[in-house]
């Protein structure tokens, strides 16, 4: 397949792996930010091709994983309401809340529907004026523009029966949270290419300078990841920092200006709790006050107390790259994709789920 096969070519991959082997003189720990990248690393076996001096740890960039348990409970509660049509991307449906999940709500008779686009949810609201349509707006800067577009369109249409349950999070504050922790071991980042396609990478320049570490904007195919790894290692070996762009075919320094403008019209920055990590200041997007009518959390206030996470789960250490999934005592036993104890085992892009699925148990 064009634009895919080129980036999965064995000879080319081998050449980059050889170049990395020739380059590396010291041990290095890099973090790939995005869950999609983690998935590629494990699925294509990149972690096993790299020399042992190079450790890839897996970042917090899995939107399903970092969505707080409390918000999933909230979604379940809202989806149970008879007047509500609850819409969501497919992979949020199975995520367990503290007592139930959205698929279970559907089986109990709740009107839970899977959509591919938030705009489909707006169309549903237009078609069903007698119902209230809620869209579960989860994700990083990648999905935020489409969700902003949905709210903006509903606003323009004057819809009163559409709202979003927003759990939008931002990458740069999470990177800073990881770097500023006293036990941090990350020495270089592979930044998430799709996030940068929207936001550009100018935001990362001050982070790179402040913490004196290289950041490479990296794509999602096996060769992208290998090349991104090579570029980051080269900077480390040459004692350089700064932001480099491996994913030139999709990312510019400025990013997608119309998308950024739309985000600015609909959302404002807020503090946001991350599952497994805690509240990170300035790390989320909330609807602007003038669009508060589209905020499902405000429309349907929470009823119960916030839930507690299982104490055994070391999700926080995993999402910050301090531990690997199989180093957890519950991994594969008390915690599996069928019965996850914590966030990274939940989504297929979570590091624990990827390790479990692709047999990285040893």
């Amino acid at each position, binding site marked *: *397949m064009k634009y*895919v096969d080129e980036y*999965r*070519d*064995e000879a080319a*991959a*081998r050449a980059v792996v050889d170049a990395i082997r020739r380059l590396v003189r010291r041990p290095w720990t890099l973090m790939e930010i995005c869950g*999609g990248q983690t998935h590629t690393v*494990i*699925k*294509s*076996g*990149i*972690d*096993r*091709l790299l020399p042992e001096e190079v450790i890839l740890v897996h970042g917090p960039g899995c*939107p*399903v994983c970092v969505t707080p348990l409390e918000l999933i409970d909230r979604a379940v509660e809202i989806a149970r309401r008879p007047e509500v049509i609850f819409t969501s*991307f*497919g*992979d*949020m*449906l*199975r995520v367990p809340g503290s007592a139930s999940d959205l698929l279970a709500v*559907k089986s109990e008779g709740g009107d839970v*529907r*899977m*959509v*591919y686009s938030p705009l*489909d949810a707006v169309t549903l609201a237009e078609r069903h004026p007698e119902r209230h349509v809620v869209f579960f707006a*989860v*994700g*990083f800067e*990648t*999905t935020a523009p489409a969700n902003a577009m949905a709210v903006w369109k509903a606003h323009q249409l004057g819809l009163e029966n559409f709202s979003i349950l927003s759990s939008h999070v931002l990458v740069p504050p999470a990177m800073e949270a990881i770097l500023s922790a006293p036990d941090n071991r990350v020495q270089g980042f592979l930044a998430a290419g*799709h996030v940068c396609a929207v936001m550009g990478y100018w935001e990362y320049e001050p982070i790179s300078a402040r913490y004196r570490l290289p950041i490479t904007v990296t794509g999602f195919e*096996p*060769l992208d990841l*290998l090349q991104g790894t090579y570029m980051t290692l080269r900077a480390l070996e040459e004692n350089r920092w700064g932001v480099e762009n491996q994913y030139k075919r999709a990312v510019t320094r400025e990013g997608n200006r119309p998308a950024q403008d739309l985000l600015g019209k609909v959302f404002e920055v807020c503090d946001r709790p991350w599952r497994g990590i805690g509240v990170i200041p300035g790390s989320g997007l909330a609807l602007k006050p003038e669009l508060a009518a589209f905020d499902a959390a405000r429309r349907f206030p929470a009823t119960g107390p916030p839930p507690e996470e299982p104490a055994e789960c070391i999700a926080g250490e995993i999402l910050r790259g301090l531990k690997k999934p199989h180093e957890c005592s519950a991994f594969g036993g008390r915690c*599996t*994709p*069928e019965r996850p104890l914590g966030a990274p085992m939940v989504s*297929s*892009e979570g590091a624990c789920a990827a390790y*479990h*699925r*692709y*047999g990285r148990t040893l």
Partner: protein
Amino acid sequence: MSDPTRPGRPTQQTAPNDPETVRPGEGAAPASAAPASSLAGGLVCPIPLSEYPTVQLAHGGGGRLSQKLIEGMFVPAFDNPTLAALGDGAVLALEELAGAGGLAGSRLALSTDSFVVRPLFFPGGDIGSLAVHGTVNDVAMCGARPFAISAGFILEEGFSMEELWRVVSSMRQAAADAGVPVVTGDTKVVDRGKGDGVYINTTGLGLVPAGVDVAPHRARPGDVVVINGPIAEHGIAIMSVREGLEFDTAVETDSAALHRLVADLLETLGPAVHALRDPTRGGLASALNEIAGQAGVGVRLDERSLPIAEQVRGACEILGFDPLYVANEGKCLAIVDRERAGEAVEVMARHPEGRGATVVGEVVGEHAGRVVLRSGIGGERVVDMLSGEQLPRIC
């Protein structure tokens, strides 16, 4: 997502939007139901639509309306003397079925499957043809030659009689093409809102000829895994017309009866065929995991040799699906002696449903019970069983 007010979900991209444009019995078959020949012979829907345009509870009640449906629609459609006898069950003469070879040493294979697919009509097929192919294939994977199937219909009150006729016509055509008659059946009707238009259960009977022994536990290190064509087409075809998730694609279901291909394979290769499996729900990955577990062997796949059509790969990339886990309905995995692998591919390729036959992997002594895949760039990973259904990803 079910909408009980629209039983049967009458029109998707594959069905004519106006029921008036194609009336059963007027010669032309609905585009998706079956080839145009499906209604050849001037078979006309015998239930006057003006009288009963939809299924009534009484159609399953055992009384006059039931009789009308059975004698008016099912018996003429499936047209065979065993069914026409309308006994409480079918009575079959085994000696005749066994043919010249006789019954000595042969064994009976029995398999059952229920079909609850949604939508009922999808690119390249429908629930009717699927219900025939699915069970014929399950019987064939036992190494048996299927000779009869039963059909149980669970109809939803209010289901369009016209659509039922389309389904029955398609089943009739599939059974006729396969040469496997529908010899007995049953019809029940459930209250409106309690079903998805129509559910079909089919049970198939077949004879395993003397000397044939295919079973998962016979897979052994050194064997080779052969498949009869590209994977993941059925699942993607269904996904492309799921309500609310539609996307444009030319991918059609691979639904097909494989018993002739299997019989040919068994005749040519004999005991060199060790195991057969149709990788339906759960896809190639689940089928091979089952075999690996049952035989206590490992299976190795090479990503680069997996046959996947360009369109299917594209759809999987967009949806975030792994084609290894996507359903097939016309595929057969054959675990055969390494020395006969080339021959197995040749035999499969002689059949229309085996044109894309190829070797996809091998059975090994290491990592017993597990399937390991060599990725396109030369890495390795375990291909596990799937937990739950694959769901489209956020990003």
